């Protein structure tokens, strides 16, 4: 299996074209396998386990708790929408489903770029930047969490050291890297095709 697609450029230097399409199948299979394994895990293995949390006092919780503002939710979905649009307009043409994808793709790309820029500034200046930092405590928590998964020992005390759990932070950072990579590669392509119509 190949991981990258390369080709000789006009000067016969080997250049990277992109990730190999084979990897798409790897991702799909891995995703499907995860769903199956997780379902089995939830249904068979931990289905019998008793929840270990004590019921909280109902009176102390308001009817509806506002965890995210409307603005934050709109922002979240805007970003999600742009990412989905990018994914759809990137992969469908490759698989042979042809439509006018270029305009949608670059608009979605610009939206994502602006959203990310906003998010970076907002998170850095207005929010608790360090809330996303992975410190020593989080790592310890992560190790403990993993132990919990493998030993299934419900007796271990859950530690809640920070605002977000480690897996959420890791997931965020992975998505951030992928998103930024998508933006950088997209902007590079745009500047290249921009010269095309520049006259």
């Amino acid at each position, binding site marked *: 299996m190949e991981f990258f697609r390369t080709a000789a450029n006009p*000067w016969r230097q080997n250049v990277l074209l992109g990730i190999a399409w084979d990897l798409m199948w790897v991702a799909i299979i891995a995703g499907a396998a995860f769903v199956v394994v997780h379902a089995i895990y939830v249904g068979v293995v931990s289905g019998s386990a008793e929840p270990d949390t004590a019921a909280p006092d109902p009176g102390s919780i308001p009817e509806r708790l506002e965890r995210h503002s409307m603005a934050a939710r709109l922002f979240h979905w805007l970003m999600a929408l742009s990412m989905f649009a990018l994914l759809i307009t990137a992969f469908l043409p490759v698989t042979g489903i042809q439509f006018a994808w270029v305009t949608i793709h670059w608009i979605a790309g610009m939206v994502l770029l602006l959203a990310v820029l906003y998010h970076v500034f907002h998170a850095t200046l207005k929010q608790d930047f360090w809330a996303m930092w992975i410190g020593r405590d989080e790592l310890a928590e992560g190790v403990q969490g993993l132990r919990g998964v493998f030993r299934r020992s419900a007796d271990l005390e859950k530690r809640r050291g920070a605002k977000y759990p480690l897996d959420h932070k890791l997931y965020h950072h992975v998505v951030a890297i992928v998103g930024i990579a998508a933006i950088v590669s997209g902007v590079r392509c745009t500047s290249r095709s921009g010269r095309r119509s520049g006259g």
Partner: protein
Amino acid sequence: MADKLIGQDIAPPDLIAKVTGQARYAEDFRPEGMVFAKLLPSPMPHARVTKLDASRALAMPGVIGVLTAEDLPEPQAPREQPLTNEPLYVGEPILALAAVDETTAADAIEAIDLELEPLPFVLDPLESLAPGGPNARVEGNTFVGREMATVKWTTADFEAAGEDELPMGEPTAEWSVGDLDTGFAAADLVIEETISHQSQTHHPLESRSCMAYWQNGKLHLYGSTQSVARTRAALADMLDLELEDVVFVGEYCGGGFGSKIAGSPIMAVPALLSKKIGRPVMLRVTRYEETYIGRARPGQQARVKIGWRNDGKITAIDLYMVQDHGPYGASGDHQTASAVASLLYQPEAMRFRGITLFTNTPPRSAQRQPGGAQISPMLEPLMDRAARELGIDRVEMRRVNAPDSDSTFGPGESQLTTAYVREALDLGAAEFGWSEKNERSGQRNGTKVTGIGVGLSSFVGGAFGYDGLLLIRPDGNLYIHMGVGNLGTHSFADTARVAADVLGMPWDRCQVIWGDTAEHLPWSCVQGGSQTAHAHSRANHAAATDMKRKLQEIAAQDLGGAPDAYEVADGRVFRSSSPGTGLSFGAAAERAIELGGSYSGQELPEDIHDMTTRSAQGLAGQGLMGVAKDNYARETGPWSFAVGFAEVELDTETGHVEITDYRAVADCGTVLHPRGAAAQAHGGGVQGFGQARSQKWVFDPKWGVPFAHRLYTARPPGILDVPLEMKFAAVNLPDPQNPVGAKGIGEPPLGAGAAAITSAISDALGGKCLCRTPLTTDVILAELEGRPQPHRRLDTHV
């Protein structure tokens, strides 16, 4: 005495072999044990080799060996090497590999591990002149004197020019004659234009294939060349060999047009590879490779300002030329162009400024009428425009300015032998029917409009001081040894007839020996620059005169009386007063062998070239020898002229141009061979049509890679692009500096053909000069439709 052979149509001695396919060209030879070589071309326009590993290729079955730049004699920078570790253009050979056959060799080339580090490159000379612009070479972007240097112009230079006008910064070449300001002040009309002339590949049909082997310490090389003796010398020089250690064979040549004047640097590859591997090596150069290593005409971006008086007389020309010279050497095309302009138009004052730049495009060299072929199609449409504005007939405009035999021209106010330009214009105008045809100028017929054009051009018409070598053997036949090449011009045989005429020898008893240096050939001029007709009619005349004197002396010795009492004709030397008393040439040859000394070549003149001496020594004692250096008068340079008249039909809906009539008239002194001269006029004309109309030279500007490297993408003209019938006439007035009156005629017909077409197209467009070549369909249609031109005025390599 028989009629003179000079002036008759006589088929060249190689004709049957050529048309029957018996002729053996360089790639037709197959010595025993021969292997084939293939070249590894650079994919980048400028790079440095960082890794070159042939081990995988050498391990392949059938692969014999490789040659790299490391195997070459120590380079004398900046001389071009046949293989390089710093390629300066796409296609420049990096390595050569020999294998048992070409398919194996090609497969092995692909197995070579090549890594290159790209270096900055430049295609457009103006980009290299711009502040901070790239240089084509690490050492600089031009020559200043004999040294490579970097010349950049200032931002102010570029801004001063304005949009689409040639900037004119500091030049590296400059000359002026007369006072320019006075000249322009006296002008009633001044026109100033920026004009582009593209570069273009030579495209000989035979590529520069070559085969070499070594035998008993001598190099035997079979190649395609324009000039045999001079190629032998060039090979000896290139490979550091003694002249007698090089045996060169080049009996036939499928065209050179200036790209094979003294062979080609690539000839060193089979020579050195053969030496390295100990087997004969054949390098068949492919069409791609030919367009890379096969030379090209330098392109020019020019700005010209011309002033005319009301009577059409040109008062002043101010010419600036930026020249693209590829990565090696320094071409003088722009200088020659300026001299030709000065000669053709005889301005009262003229200034030339120019600079020639390195670019990362294939190497340039002389191409048929170098400089002259560019300047005529550039300037002739401007002459037309001035004639229109001044209300003067266009042929009359040329007559008014034309040089005559007393004219001077160029930076040194050079003189020339003869110039019968007005005679050529008058003859052409009469035969073409200029006044009637010119009535049709601009006439519409459906979607077509008629254009009538006239183009004048000129070039050097000969060289001096070479050697003639003749032998009459006891068989009574005359053997005329010719060291020039057989470029296809027939001059190797046409000039031999000068010797036959001096000796009164029938042509069927003459044999021309050419093409193989083992056959004892004399030192010769390069077969290029229209030099041969003049140089070797003189040399053969000198040798034949020497031979005639020897015949007379032998006859006088044997039969009594004074040598002057004898004359020669029909293979005999006989007493003028009693023609029955005489000797046959065969008998005279036997007597010469007996007498020895200078008669049979045992004693030789002191002033002949070393190569002629050795050749004569090789023939000594075999008959009666005539050998001499051309010591005839050489007061000034001969220049030849050609004028082309064209009628075109331009389709206003498609931009297509059909040439419906073409006539060329030449001033080439006495015509040696009418059919040969016409072939030169027509062939040069057709090449000019291609230059003016269709021939492309295209590079991708981002990657520096060429695209017009196939004949179908380069588009030299085809048979359907020329008129059904092309006509030729010559003024046929002798040049006094040549014993038979001849001047060369290889070059000027090209510029005349190209200029007649740019002039006719401009005429069909109502006098509009598009000021670039080639005038392809898209360029013409954009003008007709009032749409943006596909290229800006100064765009190059498009």
